[in-house]
């Protein structure tokens, strides 16, 4: 489903991007545009108009404040000292950087200001996230567009061609592939707007608007997090807001879930776990060391913590461990109108919204009404008139295989769980069972 939805937007974004580039180049062109690679620029000498040498370039500084970051300074090593030279001093780039006449006073100290990024240090050869393709990739080169005096970072090169160019076999590799496979090596670039650098925690702590990870679907984020090393994992995870973090966590491998939560303090962890569905939260807390889990439970909102604690008692493989406690249960006297209002208000927090369960004051399960029935009924009708008293239920200790059979037989979207006295304890959404059964389907 997501795949299908993705395509038109992909096309649109691509068009937007091309348009952006055009605008960008039109705005300032009178001169021809030149594309340059970082690998071509590094190592060039800095020479001023009076033919004095001021060392070799070994890094560039860009400002992240614009969508296509302009280079604002270069770093060069001058007499064993690392110095920063403003880009304004550069006249043109040839076999060397030609600059206005320089005195030592023209150089600044190395200090980076906020929103500035060292390209070689933080990007070249490091990992980045491609938020468009939802992949972790390694940067082989950086691609700039030069218009007049401004050099802007437009692409990140992640391809084989870029790698071969870095190694010094660029031309050879191109010819070889043409000759041997009749294949033309293509550049594989990622537009900067889809690139999220992750090599330093500072880059992730940028304003939310600049953290491009927010563009990713939580399921993709989870895949990416699983691919990163332990430290980057927790940095990326901590850069997410609580709601995204919770959704991402639900999609992550249970072992990695535990590690991610362990890096947080109980207050942070509880904020995220509160956003998860109670059954997922219980599974996660159950896997944590006891003290840690208790610490987090103490920090959580009491109501949610109670729900989760109840689920914690039951083993994963049985009904009690599979069920969720966030479902809609209403007394029989409720009118359809009130019931719909309740659903509308609570929908956000409910794991199961397809059914409304009818209970008495002691919590005994009396009947069930589907959402479809609710929507088609007259608003003034009482639920008791619609209630379907023949409900298929399972006990807390029911095994997952039995429950799976029930789902297969009746085609429900959820099955209620009751204790010995027929009191409603929770509901198993089909999705929760899918996670238990799906791994077996392939075999």
């Amino acid at each position, binding site marked *: 489903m997501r795949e299908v939805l993705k395509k038109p937007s992909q096309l649109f974004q691509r068009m937007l991007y091309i348009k952006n580039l055009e605008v960008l180049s039109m705005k300032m062109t009178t001169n021809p545009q030149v594309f340059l690679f970082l690998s071509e620029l590094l190592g060039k000498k800095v020479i001023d108009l009076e033919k004095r040498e001021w060392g070799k370039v070994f890094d560039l500084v860009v400002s992240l404040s614009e969508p296509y970051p302009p280079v604002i300074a270069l770093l060069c090593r001058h007499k064993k000292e690392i110095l920063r030279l403003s880009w304004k001093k550069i006249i043109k780039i040839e076999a060397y950087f030609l600059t206005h006449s320089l005195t030592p006073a023209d150089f600044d100290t190395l200090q980076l200001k906020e929103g500035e990024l060292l390209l070689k240090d933080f990007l070249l*050869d490091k990992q980045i996230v491609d938020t468009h393709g939802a992949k972790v990739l390694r940067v082989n080169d950086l691609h700039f567009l030069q218009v007049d005096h401004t050099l802007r970072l437009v692409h990140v090169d992640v391809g084989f061609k870029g790698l071969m160019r*870095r*190694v010094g076999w660029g031309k050879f590799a191109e010819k070889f592939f043409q000759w041997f496979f009749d294949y033309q090596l293509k550049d594989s670039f990622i537009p900067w707007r889809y690139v999220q650098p992750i090599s330093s925690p500072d880059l992730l702590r940028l304003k939310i608007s600049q953290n491009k990870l927010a563009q990713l679907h939580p399921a993709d984020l989870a895949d990416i997090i699983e691919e990163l*090393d332990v430290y980057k994992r927790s940095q990326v995870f901590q850069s997410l807001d609580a709601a995204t973090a919770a959704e991402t966590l639900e999609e992550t491998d249970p072992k990695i879930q535990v590690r991610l939560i362990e890096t947080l303090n109980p207050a942070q962890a509880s904020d995220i776990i509160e956003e998860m569905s109670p059954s997922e939260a219980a599974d996660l807390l159950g896997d944590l060391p006891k003290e840690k889990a208790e610490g987090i439970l103490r920090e959580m909102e009491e109501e949610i913590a109670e729900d989760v604690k109840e689920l914690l008692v039951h083993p994963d493989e049985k009904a009690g461990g599979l069920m969720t406690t966030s479902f809609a249960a209403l007394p029989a006297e409720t009118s359809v109108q009130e019931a719909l209002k309740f659903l509308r208000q609570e929908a956000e927090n409910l794991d199961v919204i397809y059914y409304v369960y009818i209970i008495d004051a002691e919590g005994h399960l009396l009947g069930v009404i589907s959402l479809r029935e609710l929507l088609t009924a007259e608003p003034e009708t009482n639920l008791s008139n619609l209630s379907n008293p023949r409900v298929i239920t399972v006990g807390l200790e029911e095994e997952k295989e039995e429950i799976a059979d029930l789902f297969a037989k009746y085609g429900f979207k959820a099955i209620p769980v009751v204790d010995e006295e027929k009191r409603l304890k929770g509901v198993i959404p089909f999705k929760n069972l899918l996670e238990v059964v799906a791994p077996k389907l392939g075999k």
Partner: protein
Amino acid sequence: MAAVNHGALQRRKGFLKSLGIFLALLGPGFITSNVDNDAGGITTYSLAGSEFGFALIWTLIPITAALIVIQEMCARMGVVTGKGLSDLIRERFGARPTFYLMIALFFTNLGNSISNFAGVAASMEIFGISKYLSVPLSAFFVWWLVVKGNYKSVEKAFLVACLFYVSYIISGFMAKPDWEQIGQEVLRPSFSWEMNFVTMAVGLVGTTIAPWMQFYLQSSIVDKGLKVENYEYARMDVIIGSIAVNIVAFFIIMLCAVTIFQAGIKVETAKDAALALAPLAGKHCTWLFAFGLLNASLFAASILPLSTSYTICEAFGWEASLNRKFMEAPQFYGLYSLMIILGAGVILFPEIPLIPIMYYSQVINGILLPFILITMLILINDRRVMGNYTNGPVFNLISWITVAVMIILSAFLVITSFF
């Protein structure tokens, strides 16, 4: 799950708790060290014992120490940075050095892979099974184990393979050695400047400390997700593994020394050695010896192609995971398949000279090793990489000396191979 887990946590206390953590974390170091006793290793040990008797057995003590020093650094880098070695090399040294290093690693490991399939062929021939049957079957087995299994099951299979090394210890006892004499030999190092002797000593060192192990160890430590707090367990794992591997080496050398060397028989391969054991120590001893060789070869043949493809893909940022489909990770599966097909394929050529192949694969290892060790030392002393976990002055001195000796010995091995 939840309730059970809490109960289990409460029961684990004190010593039992530490033991539990240790056993849970045991693996990377132990497996790496053992896989290091591959076909090439076993050949070298049996030749050392058959040709020189006990004369070289003392070298196992400094070798163990060197192995611990070097592997400890890898383990530490893995735990502290959470990154694999090739990852660190790429980020610290850039694309060009990494590229050449990876090319060299690929060919070195291809050589090792070939020599392990040669080991499979040799050991199965002792049981009377033709290499045209055993090699394709074992290649399929290796592929199946890794592609169809997951990390957990593969690690378990590998730990079982580690246990089978016991067969060498049993066969060692079958030869009824004179322990008093062995004790004296170990404590009284003998050395000779005779060419064969030095070459053999270098070979022993070279086969124990190979370039690819450093990559494999570090990435399996990273895979296990060990944390800095658990570092002491990782170190124990490395130390125990290094000692275990040399105990096995000791028994192989000893077995060949008390039988083949004393009978004055000339052998050229591990297979010769196994066959020569039959009249001296019994048929069962030969079988055990051959079984050990088969196990070691299969074990190493499973790990090498996998480790190599992971390492290379990690350096170049290519998708590398057994959870992906072929088209999602073409470089990874391509490299992996290439290593197995070429490794096993070469052995199937009739008349292929197996001994030079094994020997030269050790020589290429020797050429590559110094580069790897030096990059490791630069990385581990880099504060930007290691933070407060760089080498201390004393450990640095020890590790530089170890590395210097390793480099001299490897250079010696390489130079002699050309004359």
